[in-house]
């Protein structure tokens, strides 16, 4: 079962306007690598030169902040939803889980 990746408006220029993508991979880095193959430039926007999640990007795997579960090497279960959001102030944490929006 594919992994669903939801993206902020500020990344959609790289993905041809798509806000939701299907991808595959066992880790976050692999999932982003899969997207990179179809949308060149994506990976560098969310991961830095060392392969770590950029300081101003937050990534959630389901309800969990990826930084607390291995960063870019965090395991991504089949069928999971991954959400990438800008992190104000270098990683401002949200008050609640990914479904807490409006």
């Amino acid at each position, binding site marked *: 079962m594919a992994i669903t990746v*939801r*993206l*902020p*408006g*500020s*990344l959609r*220029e790289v993905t041809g306007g798509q*806000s939701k993508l299907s991808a595959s991979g066992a880790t976050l880095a692999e999932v982003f690598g899969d997207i990179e193959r179809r949308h060149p430039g994506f990976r560098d*926007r*969310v991961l830095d030169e060392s392969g770590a999640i*950029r*300081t*101003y*990007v*937050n990534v959630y795997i389901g309800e969990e902040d990826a930084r607390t579960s291995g960063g870019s090497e965090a395991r991504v279960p089949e069928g999971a939803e991954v*959400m990438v*959001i*800008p*992190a*104000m*102030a*270098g*990683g*401002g*944490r*949200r*008050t*609640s889980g990914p479904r*807490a*929006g*409006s």
Partner: protein
Amino acid sequence: MWAKLESFNPGGSVKDRAALWMVLAAEDDGLLDAAGRERSLGSGASQRRVILDATSGNTGVALALVGAVRGHSVELCMPDLVSLERKAMARAFGAHVRLTDPLEGSDGAIVEARRLAAEEPERYAYVDQYANPANVLAHRETTGPEIWEQTEGAVTHVVAGVGTSGTVVGISQALRARGVRIVAAQPDDALHGIDGWKHMASALRPAIWDESVADRHVAVATDAALAMTRRLAREEGVFSGPSGGAAVVAAVDVAREFEGRIVVIVADGGDRYLSTPLWE
């Protein structure tokens, strides 16, 4: 280089200026009840309009503060990615906070505020900081003249970030005719971490923004902004938020090329980002 530390305003940020001027303008226009303060103590409060705006945080705190003092209720649309401190502060002043989809950022909050204002025009006084001339006027009449007076006319350049653009446009209107060069700074990428700033090429364009008010435009990378924010604290004793660090990065860029008295606007303080990894 001189830094104008807007964290010393009562609400802790540059946004106090715009918030006060926008609310007073709405009262003058009859959009808000100027007698709100007195009325709020009596039984007529429910008939008054609620101040509404979209904000990435600081304007929300400032509007909440001004609303508390002037007797107006305040409702704020904020993306669910602003720091805990700013949400808590706005609530402490009595505002109602609506959290919007973090994936849509500050533009999503704007869309939500527009929707609410359109659906219930009699309920809300939508001050719309991105389009409100009083936002610009606040800086033309206060920030700009203060810079001139506090530098005794020695200022040669003013550097400020662009979010709503009210600060840059208003200061430009006040000082450019006196020979001061205006530098507008923006994030270098649509995906950034500089609170309150907008990457204009990819964002909803504020109606008050006018590129021609600036003599120079500088793009700042988030990593450089955060590094400078920490450096300001550790080397200069200036406790700034990320946008202040970003503005100083732009100001240093200017200082490498020009001699003179450069004034940089540091929009808020580092204390409202203590819950974020900025200071870890």
